[in-house]
């Protein structure tokens, strides 16, 4: 690509909706400059979460950030939530405009 695209990490976290407030506070503290949330449902090791009511709803949170920030977030989430909460996370490489934003 001949544009000033810069590499950046896209971290996606899927977890139970009740964690939203806590999770966002963590993200902010660890240096994420933003996030995007969509409402989701799904199935995983902790069973079906079909979003029929708020207790069984998931959220899908995306964070564009640098690799160190992504690593810090992953460590924090792993330590704080992984044992007791429905949560899955994955990371991908993406190209962004204006990398200084993230």
């Amino acid at each position, binding site marked *: 690509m001949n544009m000033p695209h810069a590499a950046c990490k896209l971290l996606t976290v899927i977890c139970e909706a*009740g964690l939203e407030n*806590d999770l966002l506070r963590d993200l902010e503290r660890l240096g994420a400059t933003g996030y995007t949330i969509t409402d989701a449902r799904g199935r995983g090791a902790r069973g079906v979460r079909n979003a*029929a*009511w708020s*207790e*069984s709803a998931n959220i899908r949170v995306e964070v564009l950030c640098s690799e160190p920030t992504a690593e810090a977030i992953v460590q924090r989430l792993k330590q704080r939530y992984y044992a007791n909460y429905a949560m899955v996370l994955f990371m991908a490489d993406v190209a962004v405009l204006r990398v200084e934003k993230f």
Partner: protein
Amino acid sequence: MPFEPVILFFLLGLVAGIARSDLKIPGVLYESLSIFLLLAIGLKGGVELARHSVVALLPQAAMVVLTAALIPLLAFPLLRRLGGFARADAASIAAHYGSVSVVTFAVAAAWLAGRGIEAEGHLIVFLVLLEFPALVIGVLLARGIGADTPWGRVLHEVFAGKSIVLLVGGLVIGWVAGPEGIQPLDRLFIDLFKGMLAFFLLEMGLVAAGRLGDLRRAGPFLAGFAIAMPLAAGVLGTLTGTLLGLSVGGATLLGTLYASASYIAAPAAMRIAVPEANPALSIGASLGVTFPFNLLAGIPVYHWLAGTFNGWLK
């Protein structure tokens, strides 16, 4: 009919869920209906409160809260010793049964109204008061008074949780505005209440159908507990109500409150405060067994108990 017609909507939802129908109540409709029901009950309670002296209610309220605190304190050792549940799970389930179900209360009120049985209006105030003490007790049972409990966040979760905000908010609005102030809102909050309740029960049936699997996995002890516990709590509640001088209808409602298990406030609070507890157990028991049991069999039993106790004491 032996039971309230609105219960048929719960059964319809249950059957549709078990038959794997593609009928789905949108999650947003569920949320909207629960906001409506909580607010409507709060408003009704507030209007009732405007008719009473709040101070005069205080001693009765204190007694109601104190005896209800016995429920989680009884449930916890039972689940721990006899059921062999982990500490966190036992505490979380105990908190669910110590707290109350607003919808079960509403169905009981409709059941009484359908039979022309009067009940004290200020029972709604007790409903609000009984929502949260058991949640605090549950956290204490799980953690002790240790320093590592995030009490700030737990209490915020409980008191800023939507059920308390809407119930208390409705109560205050109803109390401040009074019967005439609220009257133009009655077309929505009073006239439509039972229809909305029917709709909500349809969804509850669908949700409960999805919980039966959890329950099967949890084994027969929990299922037995989910029937025995409300019966025991119902005895405590109707007895307390009768001793406090409530009418038969009022004691029936208090028995129903004690017997009912929370599935709105408690799951949200326990998830934050006692995350190591498995929510499938507490919600499976409260929603999969106790809720339908109370609807179909419990309420008439508590009414019979209230009548019997009332007979003894007269």
